């Protein structure tokens, strides 16, 4: 029974089935994302100013989801890396490759908005603080994985090399999360996911969570679309190889 369930999952996760699923899901995901953003931006705009940070707290509605999704992207790539190395599943390679630019973009959004928030609050666009530096390392790891995928011609060889780099890079995730506890940082400690509950007032926490939900929907939509592109790219590659072998 267990074997049958496992086989059903493997069969469902075949690239051809995923393409059919993506074609049906992307318009719906896109529509729901637009609606979620319409609501989330409205919530963000009517949220009150913070008693200390004033209106700049509105930057948090971009910065925090960017940080969460940048880390989620790498966590997803880590699971996919296990899928590549242990089960050698083709959709795991596709997921890992497609998630890299999506995760990199959200990490970049986190860094840029954090910098623009830091200048008025700390008086500096950048400090070599443990949290900021570990997130910068995550962004550089993303760029490294993207470069690796582009450098190695054979997708299965590239997948194995990228999977190893991804697993090593996953060590950065707990460093990012706990950097504010392990070191004395200028960056504030955790204020949402912490023992004892969030320290943010509901009037700001709810718009933040709604915005995070909208960005998560956008992340999923872009990831599914990027995975579809990658499957099509591999089909193009296969046909070109067939064309080349027929010509020789």
């Amino acid at each position, binding site marked *: 029974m267990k074997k049958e369930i496992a086989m059903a999952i493997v069969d469902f996760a075949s690239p051809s089935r995923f393409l059919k699923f993506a074609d049906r899901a992307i318009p719906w995901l896109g529509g729901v994302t637009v609606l979620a953003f319409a609501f989330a931006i409205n919530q963000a705009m009517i949220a009150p*100013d913070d008693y200390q940070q*004033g209106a*700049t707290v509105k*930057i948090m509605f971009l910065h925090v989801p*960017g940080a969460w999704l940048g880390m989620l992207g790498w966590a997803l790539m880590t699971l996919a890396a296990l899928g590549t190395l242990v089960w050698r599943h083709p959709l795991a390679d596709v997921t890992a490759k497609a998630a890299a630019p999506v995760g990199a973009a*959200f990490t970049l*959004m986190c860094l840029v*908005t954090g910098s623009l928030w830091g200048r008025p609050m700390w008086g500096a666009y950048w400090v070599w603080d443990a949290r900021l530096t570990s997130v910068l390392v995550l962004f550089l790891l993303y760029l490294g994985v993207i470069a690796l995928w582009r450098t190695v011609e054979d997708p299965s060889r590239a997948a194995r090399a990228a999977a190893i780099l991804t697993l090593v890079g996953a060590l950065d995730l707990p460093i990012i999360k706990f950097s504010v506890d392990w070191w004395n940082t200028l960056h504030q400690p955790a204020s949402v996911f912490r023992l004892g509950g969030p320290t943010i007032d509901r009037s700001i926490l709810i718009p933040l969570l709604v915005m995070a939900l909208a960005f998560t929907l956008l992340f999923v939509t872009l990831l599914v679309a*990027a995975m579809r592109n990658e499957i099509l790219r591999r089909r193009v590659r296969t046909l070109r190889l*067939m064309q080349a072998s027929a010509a020789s």
Partner: protein
Amino acid sequence: MEPANHIGFIVAAYAAATVVIGALAAWVTLDYRAQLRRLADLELKGLTRRSASKRSELAMRQAKEDA
């Protein structure tokens, strides 16, 4: 703290986020169109994947049977 003093930073943050995520969405969309165009070009040259051509044969057979 005067929020008006920092409006430029807030606007810049939202503009930067729009540019970064907008560029990603545009790249994904353009990439999809490019892959579809490449596949269509290859199919015009008579190249199809074995599994795809089997499916096409089956579909044609089914259509003939239906007719």
